[in-house]
């Protein structure tokens, strides 16, 4: 009987200690916390693009617009030349276009995928009262938009994605 009583008391004492411990645990968990998460992703876009010159001739003036029909942004440049006799008579101008290396005319802005340059390149042709047929050839090229360490776009014409030649007869 005494042995049974001892066990009972020991169990009670154990329970009391357990209760004390659980009380302390309860205090340890009483902190205000919260959390939140969000995620998202995107694909890397790498590839080539394709540009097409759109030309319109009005009153011996060729109006050139370059359209980016590909999936990637690019820079474009255009070169115009005719026979030796007529080359001197070509008057090339256009807002946003600047004559640069290799006698190309470089468009100042990035041409986004699916759009065209905003300003036309105008080529005024002097036919020199000639009765002969002659060609005015337009060469346009595009290069991918590259980004420097600061994320600013720049062009590198050592990398030409597409080149198209067109002529006016």
């Amino acid at each position, binding site marked *: 009987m005494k042995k049974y009583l001892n066990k009972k008391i020991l169990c009670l004492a154990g329970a*009391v*200690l357990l209760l004390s411990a659980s009380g302390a645990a309860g205090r340890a968990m009483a902190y205000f916390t919260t*959390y939140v998460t969000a995620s998202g*992703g995107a694909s890397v876009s790498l590839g080539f693009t394709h540009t097409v010159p759109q030309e319109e001739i009005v009153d011996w003036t060729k109006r050139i617009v370059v359209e980016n029909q590909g999936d990637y942004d690019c820079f474009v440049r255009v070169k115009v030349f005719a026979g030796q006799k007529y080359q001197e008579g070509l008057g090339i101008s256009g807002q946003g276009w600047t004559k640069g290396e290799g006698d190309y005319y470089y468009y100042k802005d990035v041409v986004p995928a699916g759009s065209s340059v905003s300003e036309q390149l105008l080529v005024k042709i002097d036919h020199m009262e000639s009765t002969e047929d002659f060609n005015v050839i337009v060469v346009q090229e595009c290069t991918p938009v590259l980004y420097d360490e600061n994320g600013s776009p720049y062009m590198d014409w050592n990398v030409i994605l597409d080149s198209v030649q067109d002529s006016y007869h």
Partner: protein
Amino acid sequence: MKKIRALLRKPVFLLAVSAVLLAASTLGSAQAALTYYSENYSAQMSVSSIGVTLVENGEKVSWRDYEHQGGQWSENSGKLLQHLSGRDGKKTVVPGKKYQEKLTVQNSGDIDAYVRVILYRDWQNPQGVRDTALSPGLIDLGLSKGNGWIVDEKASTAERTVLYYQNVLPAGEESPSLCDTLKIHSDIAKKAAETVVEDENGYRTITTRYVYDGYRFQLTAEVDAVQTHNAREAIKSAWGVDVDVAADDTLRLQ
């Protein structure tokens, strides 16, 4: 001495000792509870709940706020990078180009809090399988410097960046941005593969393709907030890290 040993063997004595211990622990709890409720008494009048919101480029993306009335959590889990555009409705990025990715944390609760953010970055191939061969370091987040956010270098890896906001974020306030830009490093475009196919006439077709075209990156942000009261213990308990809290309440990692 014998008397003491005899006394120790008596269960009644043990029970008495236990009772005293229990009473003492209750007293401790009562004191803790007194402090606890004393602080929360004023909290219930004006400050009663904790909450945190992740903000991306000024837009609230995800939040989890405790609503004292009703005792429920008001929560929303949104998506990051939804502002990126791309072809065919897919979100795409061009390597080298910087995109705005301004991440901030708003304390949307009623009590001041310490906050931390864990950013995870990884790659998936076009089939959706995680690719550990491609470095997460190519996913360049322009982390802010000198505005209160510090990187826990010990806890950070190539895939994970752990940032702590050193200052207390007051209730209702928004932290400075922990990052401002996102850029996929242009080195990813340097790896190209060439395939040469020769037909029966001897003509060869050479096709060049970018190895990582179509690869998808994933960015995950996890924001944690904890109370400022008993900050050291609370942070240890909630986040498992040891910090020092300076006299001006700024955190320092140990």
